[in-house]
């Protein structure tokens, strides 16, 4: 029988998987892996700001993640290559966040819980935020789906079809910021992008269309999330890293199997 906190943890994982599955596909298709990583690192600065201003962690992280994503998307490709820019912003804001937190005298903060996630602290309010966030991301993706796809295949083709690819990029930035804000407590800033990328990469082996890939990525994300949660209680390990390890193991297994099947 599941304990109450375990049920909450399981629901949290499923909620995040619902948003991370399809969104992770776009991160992979558009080669935004490092972008997601950088935005998540910057989120630590959002945690510090939220604590200093005594606002909710969710709001602080959402604002900082969104700002980072927008700055990077608008500046990239001008003076610096976007990965250089991402490196500067990601690590500068991670470091700045850590420095800022040590200036907050009254806060006894378990920093590890934001870097690696602490699923045991998920409250009922957190669960509501996670599911509202996931619903918002799914609604955004559902609404923009075809426009996002055409923008991903070729930006000029999007323009010629009356779709502005820059606007679609903003939609994705917003969705990524929401996913990071709702999941920083569960998987942690350092592992969020793994939760986005690995299930999508696994699903690539099994899908022949973008919709099936998104669906499979969601199922795989939820499956490895729940499996990792279960495993972390069985062998008494940190939950966030165990979830990522589980989904990586699944990725290796599926990739190897489909390589074997192709070779035959």
């Amino acid at each position: 029988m599941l304990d109450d906190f375990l049920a909450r943890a399981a629901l949290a994982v499923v909620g995040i998987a619902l948003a991370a599955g399809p969104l992770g596909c776009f991160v992979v298709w558009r080669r935004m892996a490092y972008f997601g990583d950088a935005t998540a690192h910057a989120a630590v600065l959002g945690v510090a700001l939220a604590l200093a201003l005594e606002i909710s962690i969710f709001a602080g992280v959402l604002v900082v993640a969104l700002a980072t994503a927008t700055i990077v998307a608008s500046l990239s490709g001008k003076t610096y290559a976007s990965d250089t820019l991402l490196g500067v912003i990601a690590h500068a804001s991670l470091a700045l966040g850590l420095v800022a937190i040590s200036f907050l005298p009254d806060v006894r903060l378990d920093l590890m819980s934001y870097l690696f996630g602490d699923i045991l602290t998920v409250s009922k309010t957190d669960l509501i935020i996670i599911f509202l966030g996931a619903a918002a991301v799914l609604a955004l993706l559902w609404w923009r789906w075809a426009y996002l796809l055409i923008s991903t295949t070729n930006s000029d083709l999007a323009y010629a079809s009356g779709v502005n690819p820059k606007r679609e990029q903003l939609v994705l930035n917003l969705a990524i910021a929401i996913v990071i804000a709702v999941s920083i407590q569960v998987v942690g800033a350092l592992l969020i992008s793994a939760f986005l990328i690995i299930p999508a990469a696994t699903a690539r082996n099994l899908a022949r269309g973008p919709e099936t890939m998104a669906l499979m990525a969601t199922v795989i994300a939820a499956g490895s999330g729940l499996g990792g949660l279960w495993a972390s209680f069985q062998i008494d390990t940190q939950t966030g890293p165990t979830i990522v390890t589980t989904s990586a193991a699944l990725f290796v297994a599926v990739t190897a199997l489909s390589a074997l099947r192709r070779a035959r």
Partner: protein
Amino acid sequence: MSRIKVQNLTIKRDGISILDNVSLSIEDGEIVTVVGPNGSGKSTLMKALIGAIEPQKGEITAKPGTIIGYVPQSLNIDPTMPMGVSRFLSLPRARPKDAIEATLARVGLSGVNTRQVSDLSGGQLQRVLLARALLRDPQLLILDEPTSGLDQPGIADFYALIASVREELGCAIVIVSHDLHVVMSASDRVICLNGHVCCHGTPEIVSAAPEYRALFGLGTHGALAIYRHEHDHHHDHDHSHDHPHEH
């Protein structure tokens, strides 16, 4: 009224002028080829026509309700993105299955609808992109270097296809190319671009124009071009070109 009219178009990037005061118009039912060396602003002009670039100065006016079909030079579908041909042809708007099959047959590609876009050859991809543009029922078809990945027979086939599309739809067609001797036979009008409109007119007029010869020289574009030019130029050697030619 012209199908699309470009007036005094000026586009700068980082303060450097890419297109300077370009004016041109394209009529219904004609095939216009835009030629120019690399960096001459051909692609920028096409991007401005489809609305991907905002001009700093000047105006682009199309007949009201003009649907533009655009054929890009290539796609950047990442290998991680599974995408069947049918699904791709239904982006961003869903198309009926029989319309997709009929259009694929029209471009000579029956039976590829279940294939992955990433598995297509260069020539097949070019035709799928054309099919996608045709599914929009365009009045203006814009093709950006459509033949760059094709071999000689492939190029000839593709241009024959374009010509038959014009016959059938009566649409205006703009083709960007750096491939000159193909331009000659396929188009009604040639616009030679090098940041500005150097010269324009029928293929014969353009190929004889001194501005055009200054840009491209003679005989650099294959045996066909050499053959042509040897007939109509006067063996005076003070025209400017940077290569030895074979007399």
